[in-house]
């Protein structure tokens, strides 16, 4: 129903176009470098789009969005290496488990508001990381390794990278459509109302505790699957890389940069940020300099462009709001 309704609007096809460009571009001339750069762009788009449901729509700053990604990675790798399940089965299981956990966490910590919620989400990162570091079945602080043999199920090492790439692009497409579908739904309207004024929303009848928990849970599913793919690709996961507060903060910068609450803006912000980051990481003088940049960027946005890129574009070209959500 909703999908059919959305398909009548131009933005539906804008997303389809973005996904198509991502899928086709590296195939031209078998461009492996481009593929590796785009897979990271896609990852940032996935993480930022899903965080946007919490941060942009519902107005809750979640510093712990990376927990979904890390836990998804852990569950997926453990299912593949420990239980010998195929990747195709492990990914959705990882997504579902993490979403379920998010629902339980969410019903608890979403009673908090503002700074207190933000602090609690940092607590969740630290708590989950500490748990995993001491959890023997997941290798404790040493982490989990995949043996080369598991790649056979997706066509051996050479094909595997392509398969993972296309899966990542698919998850990216789903993330964009999810953001868009949520925004265009009654659920999304309730979230936007909460984001504007939670008390007023409750008086208007929005079931705020349930909606917030559902938003938290919804925003966990696809990042968990992306985590599964990402760590399957590197064949290794350890607590420090799975629950990296830096990446979590970067994703917040990306959402603010693109324009919180917009679907296209956040994707654009993610793409620009990821490309800039890639450039700075590979220039010798600027090792880890991207963090300085992202800090400065966040300051500039908060001070001068609270609407982000998209807010700026909307104010220049108001008509574009009809096409780009």
């Amino acid at each position: 129903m909703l999908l059919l309704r959305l398909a009548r609007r131009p933005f539906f096809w804008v997303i389809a176009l973005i996904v198509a460009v991502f899928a086709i571009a590296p195939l031209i001339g078998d461009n492996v470098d481009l593929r590796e750069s785009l897979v990271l762009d896609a990852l940032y788009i996935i993480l930022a789009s899903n965080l946007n449901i919490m941060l942009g729509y519902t107005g809750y700053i979640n510093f712990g969005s990376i927990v979904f990604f890390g836990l998804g990675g852990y569950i997926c790798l453990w299912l593949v290496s420990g239980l010998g399940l195929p990747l195709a089965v492990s990914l959705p299981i990882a997504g579902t488990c993490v979403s379920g956990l998010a629902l339980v966490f969410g019903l608890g910590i979403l009673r908090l508001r503002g700074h207190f919620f933000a602090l609690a989400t940092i607590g969740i990162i630290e708590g989950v990381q500490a748990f995993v570091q001491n959890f023997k079945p997941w290798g404790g602080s040493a982490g989990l390794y995949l043996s080369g043999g598991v790649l056979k199920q997706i066509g051996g090492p050479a094909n595997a990278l392509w398969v993972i790439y296309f899966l990542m692009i698919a998850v990216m497409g789903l993330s964009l459509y999810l953001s868009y579908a949520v925004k265009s739904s009654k659920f999304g309207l309730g979230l936007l109302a909460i984001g504007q004024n939670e008390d007023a929303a409750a008086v208007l009848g929005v079931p705020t505790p349930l909606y917030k928990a559902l938003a938290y849970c919804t925003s966990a599913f696809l990042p968990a699957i992306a985590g599964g793919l990402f760590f399957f690709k590197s064949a290794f996961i350890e607590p420090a890389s799975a629950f990296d507060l830096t990446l979590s903060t970067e994703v917040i910068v990306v959402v603010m940069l693109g324009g919180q609450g917009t679907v296209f803006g956040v994707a654009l912000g993610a793409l620009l940020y990821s490309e800039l980051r890639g450039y700075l990481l590979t220039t010798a003088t600027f090792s880890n300099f991207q963090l300085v940049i992202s800090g400065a960027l966040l300051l500039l946005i908060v001070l001068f462009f609270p609407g982000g890129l998209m807010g700026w574009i909307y104010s220049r070209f108001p008509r574009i709001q009809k096409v780009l959500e």
Partner: protein
Amino acid sequence: MTNLLELKDVSKRFGGVQAVRDLSFEVREGEILGLIGPNGAGKSTLFNLINGVFKPDTGNVVFQGEDITGQKPYKIARRGIARAHQIVQPLGALSVLDNCTVGACFGREDLPLTQARETAFEVAQTVGLGDRLQMRASALTTAGKKRLEMARALSARPKLLLLDEVLAGLNPSETEEMIATVRAIRDRGVSILMIEHIMRAIMSLSDRIVVLNLGSKLAEGTPQQVAENPEVITAYLGDASVTHGEEASS
């Protein structure tokens, strides 16, 4: 007439302040009940007790025969009590139409989005916001925001509408329009409980009036009865002899 809303011995204390004390009254089906009283009499607190923002310390709130004491605001909204706030609370970044759609979506009828938008569109027209549907709510004037409060509440298609000083801050012609709007809403079968300081308006609109002072009920009756009640005159204007003296001299 049957009772739509009944308050039975409701009390609420904030620290050392007894905001509402053993208060009982009822709102009948189809009536406009005015609620007046000096500042700090507990009027807005009473609204918060009715729609679940606060839980009463003692007593019961009964709506359509069911006890709704202490239920969450969103559950009470779903049952058909909508509220326009005294201090306007627009969903600032959303358009006027979206603000009303929230009311329609999550109100008594629990409408799906498309239908809710239609309802919101209609209501916005009747309240006089038809020309500003796509405007951001935060960009509205004070009078516009007051209307928006009203429109959002009405979009929920409520049984009972709580209006908290919707006339405050409006100029005379806007006040006249708003009074006409309130009448029109009642004529469509919505019961109204309204707080108002503008005496002329509340006297002409209300079927009955309840007077609060220091959290308790001072008087109750038709506008005529209340206006002639010596205790009410004292609470509002000070010593009765002084007022009578003024009348004699004028």
